[in-house]
């Protein structure tokens, strides 16, 4: 079922057993799990089915820390959420990403990678990618041309990525959701406050507003916030009528530990010797490549060097064209143009809109690849989302992002490149040249500093309520009937794009709720 909340009478109460706030990858993944059950599900989406600039403006906020992408451009506020413009890159987190690492403060998940394996396999079907196989050798058996570099796996290894079509949740799953008898989707229903009982130990309802001034309420037995990393924190912090610091924020953790993946050009690889022609494993052609590898740091080397997890993509170098970070190459204007083009609107093409143009035909020794590093950011309590004094059109305080980095983030880049340079030299693959800023020993960041729009960590998971906002089952500590879905629960960021993992975690949460609220 679907209702446009703007058509409802003012003051209407919406009731269900389970209420999911946000219809992006996490919210839709959970809602689909309940279709056909006896549970009545409310799915509240702030935007509509299509892009709406007025709804998008509700995501506008301030960046006061390290330079960051405009917040209203980094996420889509509509049914399907940011899958409306994601690139479809999927990979699992590594086992070490879940472990406490003494050299990475605040690291460690209360669950192990093995816990997520069955959910990763299910998530594969949701995002429409291939078999749940991430060993390079498995892909080489499927395609003999996918030959990994002969790297010492104790140092570096070939980590596989798989590519979703990409699945646009807003179009792919709209029919299923709207057609479900027990799932009621309300669009243009912006939740502005989580209301609790006197002790803030249980949610009693949600206050909803529409841009035309209507106020609605939702009431359910259990609630799931799935509004994205920044908006989950914003909503909890703004819900301060009873809990003055915000719901779930008894220990001043909500909004903290905001993390990104650094996605930055960091050097070049020039191939030498016999391996010059064996690069199919690492190549990517938009819309065609189903799986490919990146060169990643081994867990053993992360432990030995006390460094963060990282991988590197090989991108054929184009003479005269300086490589750019993800933020530099996909500006908000280009992102908007891509979105319009996908909707069938006529848009002037940009040369770099065609990633396959980057696939060169040069072969043999001397072939050059730009190296785009994808590195995790260390958890940092000072990197945080807070509320601004300015309010949006619905009266909610806007979000302020203070993106802050640590010396470990910076130091790990150089360590990674030293390992990479040594290992590709030892193996006869080639030689590495670091960009100036990587080679330098200072703490500064270059103008190419940027991420991949991978927002993580503002409602982190930890067994101890003093160290995390949610527990191992994604339930908010101290609040009996409130859970959180999405990358905001990640205690650490790994180096894999977050979507596959957040879908897997959402499926796990859904299974847990089926037991908990049945």
């Amino acid at each position, binding site marked *: 079922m679907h209702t446009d909340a703007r058509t409802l009478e003012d003051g209407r109460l919406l009731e269900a057993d389970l209420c999911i706030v946000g219809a992006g990858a996490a919210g839709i993944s959970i809602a689909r799990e309940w279709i056909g059950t006896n549970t009545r599900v409310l799915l509240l989406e702030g935007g509509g089915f299509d892009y709406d600039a007025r709804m998008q403006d509700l995501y506008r906020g301030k960046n006061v820390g390290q330079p960051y992408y405009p917040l209203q451009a980094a996420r889509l506020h509509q049914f399907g959420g940011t899958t409306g413009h994601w690139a479809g890159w999927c990979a699992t987190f590594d086992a070490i990403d879940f472990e406490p690492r003494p050299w990475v403060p605040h690291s460690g998940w209360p669950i192990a990678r093995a816990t997520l394996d069955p959910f990763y396999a299910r998530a594969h079907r949701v995002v429409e990618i291939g078999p749940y196989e991430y060993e390079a050798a498995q892909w080489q058996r499927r395609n003999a041309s996918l030959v990994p570099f002969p790297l010492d796996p104790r140092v570096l290894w070939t980590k596989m990525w798989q590519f979703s079509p990409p699945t646009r949740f807003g179009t792919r799953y709209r029919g299923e959701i709207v057609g479900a008898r027990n799932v009621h989707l309300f669009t243009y229903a912006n939740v502005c406050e989580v209301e609790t009982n006197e002790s803030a130990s249980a949610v009693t309802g949600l206050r909803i507003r529409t841009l035309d001034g209507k106020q609605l309420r939702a009431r359910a037995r259990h609630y799931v916030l799935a509004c994205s990393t920044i908006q989950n924190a914003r909503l909890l912090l703004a819900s301060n009528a009873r809990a003055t610091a915000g719901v779930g924020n008894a220990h001043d953790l909500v909004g903290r530990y905001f993390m990104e993946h650094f996605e930055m050009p960091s050097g070049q690889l020039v191939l*030498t010797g016999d391996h010059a022609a064996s690069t199919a494993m690492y190549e990517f052609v938009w819309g065609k490549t189903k799986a490919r590898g990146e060169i990643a740091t081994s867990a053993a080397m992360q432990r030995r060097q006390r460094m963060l997890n990282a991988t590197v993509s090989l991108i054929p170098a184009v003479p005269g064209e300086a490589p750019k970070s993800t933020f530099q190459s996909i500006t908000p204007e280009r992102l908007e143009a891509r979105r319009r083009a996908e909707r069938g609107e006529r848009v002037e093409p940009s040369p770099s809109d065609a990633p396959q143009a980057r696939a060169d035909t040069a072969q*043999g020794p001397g072939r050059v690849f730009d190296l785009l590093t994808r590195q995790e950011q260390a958890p940092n309590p000072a990197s945080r989302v807070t509320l601004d004094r300015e309010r949006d059109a619905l009266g909610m305080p806007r979000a302020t992002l203070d993106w802050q980095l640590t010396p470990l983030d910076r130091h790990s880049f150089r360590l990674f490149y*030293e390992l*990479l340079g040594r290992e590709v*030299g030892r193996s*006869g693959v*080639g030689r*590495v*040249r670091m960009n100036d800023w990587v080679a330098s020993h200072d703490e500064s960041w270059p103008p190419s500093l940027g991420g991949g729009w991978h927002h993580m960590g503002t409602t982190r998971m930890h067994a101890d309520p003093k160290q995390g906002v949610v527990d191992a089952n994604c339930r908010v500590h101290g609040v009996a009937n409130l859970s959180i879905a999405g990358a905001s629960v990640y205690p650490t960021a790994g180096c894999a794009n977050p979507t596959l993992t957040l879908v897997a975690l959402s499926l796990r949460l859904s299974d847990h709720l089926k037991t908990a609220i049945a």
Partner: protein
Amino acid sequence: MDRRQFLSISAASAAIAITGATRAYGSASMPHALGQPDLLVALGPDAVREIGRAYRALVPSDNDRATLDAALRAELRAAHSSNEDLVRADFAAGRTIVVRDWILSRTEARQCALFSLLSA
């Protein structure tokens, strides 16, 4: 060497037929082979020359043809292996040096330096 130079490695430079010569390293009858790093094939002579000059500036004690020649011969004799094996062994053992942001084996950095002196 800037990025443009780096990428402008021409077919002519790649065609420099030095690979075979450098693998016959221990031969005293081929003194100039010491100054012919395998990197020439991948990077070309201009880039290798630039690296060599930068190395000599970075390690002033190696800014001399005779010193470089003697050091390279000594390394090869001690290693009892080919140049390629020696370079790989350098990388494996961490005997590397960063020259103009390139991560190089110490042996090949010296070869680049000798090349820059021989081909100046």
